[in-house]
């Protein structure tokens, strides 16, 4: 195990974990406030990646794709919440699961109709297509550094929003006791829509950032969805700070596992999850459920 190699793996794990956080934080926020689980969250990530692919192919710029993913996320999230999810908050778990499963199928078919089923790679923006020398024998992709930077900035914004703003206070209250929101005379429906739109947007941005790193291909959202579930379970359902720590742990375990123990890497994160469940059934940072 050589040192520059290990350093690269650690950075890769950190970057992978931060992307996972963007996806998982949306999942956990939406659950915390509305009590609904969105299986189609992985598809939202996939949509973000395809937005990046299409925009890059059309206009040759990933920088254009990021604001478009953001606007697309806000619109899509609001429409989904308004038109569909709102009617499912009080429904049975099974109905919610199947509704969002149907959405996965429809999003995938839509993708297949619009873009086809090819596996596409998305070019790294030329501006960042170089390596930054870190030590004498080791340099690291400038684009990956940028992804790390953007993710950290978004995470900081998210925490500021939740901890320091009025909407954030409502969100925290709602996650603690859903009926509180109504008692306080707050328009819960607006809060729901905002939270859903934010979660959706984070997933789309994660997808757009990930596209040059992971390429775009059919059903790409599935793998990310399930690993995000593991993140949310370990972090504690509804806890955004828990999601951050657990995303970083999972990112590192997954990446280092792939590099140094590829045989068991696929299983490592699930074993970790099982261990956490035995120790603390409600996750590392979750309140008791």
């Amino acid at each position, binding site marked *: 195990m050589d040192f520059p190699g290990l350093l690269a793996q650690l950075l890769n794990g950190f970057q992978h974990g931060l992307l996972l956080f963007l996806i998982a934080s949306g999942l956990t926020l939406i659950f915390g406030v509305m009590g609904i689980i969105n299986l189609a969250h992985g598809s939202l990530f996939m949509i973000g990646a395809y937005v990046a692919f299409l925009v890059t192919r059309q206009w040759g710029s990933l920088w254009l794709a990021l604001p478009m993913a953001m606007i697309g996320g806000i619109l899509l999230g609001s429409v989904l919440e308004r038109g569909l999810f709102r009617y499912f908050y009080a429904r049975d*778990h099974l109905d919610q*699961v199947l509704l969002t499963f149907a959405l996965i199928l*429809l999003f995938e078919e839509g993708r297949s109709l619009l873009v086809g089923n090819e596996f596409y790679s998305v070019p790294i923006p030329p501006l960042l297509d170089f390596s930054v020398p870190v030590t004498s024998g080791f340099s690291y992709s400038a684009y990956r550094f940028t992804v790390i930077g953007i993710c950290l900035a978004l995470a900081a914004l998210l925490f500021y929003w939740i901890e320091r703003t009025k909407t954030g206070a409502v969100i925290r209250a709602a996650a603690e006791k859903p009926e509180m929101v109504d008692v306080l005379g707050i328009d819960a429906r607006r809060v729901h829509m905002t939270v859903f739109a934010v979660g959706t947007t984070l997933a789309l941005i994660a997808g757009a950032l990930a596209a040059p790193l992971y390429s775009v291909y059919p059903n790409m959202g599935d793998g990310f969805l399930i690993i995000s579930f593991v993140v949310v379970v370990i972090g504690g359902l509804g806890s955004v700070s828990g999601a951050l720590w657990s995303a970083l742990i999972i990112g590192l375990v997954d990446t280092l596992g792939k590099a140094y123990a590829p045989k068991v890497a696929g299983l490592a994160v699930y074993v970790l999850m099982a261990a956490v469940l035995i120790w603390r059934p409600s996750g590392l940072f979750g309140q008791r*459920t």
Partner: protein
Amino acid sequence: MLPRSTAGRVLLGAGALLLGAMPVFAQPYYVELGTYALISAMLALSLQLLVGCTGLVSLGHAAFYGLAAYTVYLITPANNGVSILITLPAAVAAAGLAALIVGALSLRTRGFFFLMVTLAFGQMVFFIFHDTKLGGGTDGAFLSRPLLSILDWELPLTRRQRPIATYYLSLGLLIAMYLSLVLILRSLFGRVLEGIRVNEHRMQALGFNTYRYKLAAFVIAGLLAGVAGHMWAMHRGFVNPELIGWHRSAEALLMILMGGLTTLHGPIIGALAFTGLGEFAQLITERKLLVEGLVILFVVLALPKGLSGIGMPRWMRRSPTTDGSARAAAEARTHG
């Protein structure tokens, strides 16, 4: 859960007779399709014990189904079938054991947590077979089908008769599974499960260790899914990791929802309808998943009681109050 009226029972019996007569008049291809539908019905029925009866929505149920199929592969030497008297118990035991371990861990959680944890464990089993050489990796592997034999005597069947025998065996197992679930639900155990579905806290207050009851239900459901998985291996002679994938688990949930959450025959009707729909969609369009997605959306939005809830005169259905209580319980769980 159970048909109360005579008319309902007569209808169910007639349905069983119709399924029994199917191989007499249907083409070989449709007999095989029928076998697949019956296997799916077993899978959905086993899951119903968790979803409809106990109120536990699991998204990892296909793990036990696939694990049983892989067990048949693992214990069968190449080019040499083993008696079903060995493969069936082995496959079912393996599925049950896995259900015990997964259930013991995941039942420590509730609600959506439970759903995500079962999904993650299902994927873990998926990766075991997908990423290792244990069962042929991504491509899957062939196996010699279990033999219908006792000691050294094998049922003399021609190649043409074998699929028909598999069909009847699947039908027999499905009926046996249905009847045993009827017995289970009528017992005290079944009533406790129903109590847990409606209000777990009350059952705890009454002194029941609900964790143990739920675990028992989880293991039984796993065992029964193992029967279905064994029959898939026998039917197809081929295993593939996709058998375990969570899409299969979601399909089983869909069958239950299509057929109706509140009855035991619902999942069977749902599975037959789902298989028929898939075949029909395949004939008319290249976009089978689009049809599937739209149908799910329709069922979720418009048919909350499933197919067995429509078109039946009121006296055939269960009393509306019990249906209503199931809904209320579901709503009560949402934030639990």
